[in-house]
């Protein structure tokens, strides 16, 4: 086959194009690696510091009269963060126990129970709280920010944070008795 005259010199890929291509590839790989890491991550673990948490509370479930509670206000106390939802059947198993445990600890003021309502509707949430006679502070997880921070994988999950703001225990699934709850809180109070 006869050669057709070349009208431009043979050249490789220009440097600027190579830089763009490789940069994009590296960016994609890094992105995927981080995403993969995130997907493999479980919930926050014992020993992690919980920095900030702001929960807007349902009216009627205020904390010391304020309709918002921040984790920073609670330093020096043991904080029990319980994620629940009205549409969650296993949550009902532990609701009564949680309230009983709260009754035991609320007098001293050294332990605070906070309920975080995960993607729920207010009427149903209130009905749930009323049904189990819950009295500790409760509020909706607006924008699912708090549950994302804890990286919860479902409800119910309960997180126990010590006086210095460090996570000490993670409970996945419902508690089976008040004694279970006590056995986690009491060591933290010592």
């Amino acid at each position: 086959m006869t050669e057709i005259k070349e009208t431009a010199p043979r050249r490789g890929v220009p440097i600027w194009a190579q830089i763009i291509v490789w940069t994009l590839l590296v960016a994609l790989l890094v992105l995927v690696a981080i995403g993969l890491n995130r997907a493999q991550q479980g919930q926050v673990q014992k020993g992690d510091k919980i920095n900030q948490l702001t929960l807007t509370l349902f009216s009627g479930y205020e904390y010391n009269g304020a309709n918002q509670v921040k984790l920073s206000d609670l330093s020096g106390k043991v904080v029990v963060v319980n994620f629940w939802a009205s549409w969650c059947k296993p949550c009902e198993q532990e609701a009564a126990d949680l309230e009983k445990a709260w009754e035991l600890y609320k007098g001293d003021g050294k332990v605070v129970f906070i309920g975080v309502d995960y993607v729920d509707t207010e009427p149903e949430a209130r009905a749930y709280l009323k049904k189990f006679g819950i009295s500790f502070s409760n509020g909706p997880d607006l924008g699912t920010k708090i549950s994302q921070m804890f990286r919860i994988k479902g409800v119910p999950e309960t997180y126990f944070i010590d006086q210095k703001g460090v996570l000490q225990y993670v409970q996945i699934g419902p508690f089976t008795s008040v004694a279970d709850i006590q056995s986690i809180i009491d060591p933290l109070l010592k």
Partner: protein
Amino acid sequence: MELKLSNKNLRITVFALLAVALAFFIASQIYRPALAQNPTPTDDEVNRIAHQLYCPVCENTPLDVCPTEACRQWRDLIRQQLSQGWTEDQIKQYFISQYGVRVVGEPPATGLNWLVYVLPPLVILAGAFVLFRAFRAWTKSSKASAAAESEIEAPKDEYVARLEEELKKRK
């Protein structure tokens, strides 16, 4: 019949194509097909809004077809809000503030989310531009030299090449 690829023709082509594209684009923005065109039993009014929202728990499932208990409650919530006279926008805003921005099918164009809308057109235009430049370079160089001779030679070359192919295959 030969026609030199002059600047004028090129410009006309490009403008014509852009005009057509612009017409398409405008038409598509004006005409958003209605989802339910019927007189309104309450279920349909709820679904009309629920269809535009996504279940916060199950991924990528529109709210009007999501079978979970939670979604049922959300649809009841929408029903309630509608009966209280909330507008569609108010309901959507409520859902966004309660459950985060993932409940709507497209992120609002704020902050980083601008990139979703801006990047694809930019990349496509950039690609088209690069190709256009390369094409221009080709036609400029080819105009001078091989145009006449390669035209005559090419078909014969093809024929010869094909014959060679067939002969090789028959071996």
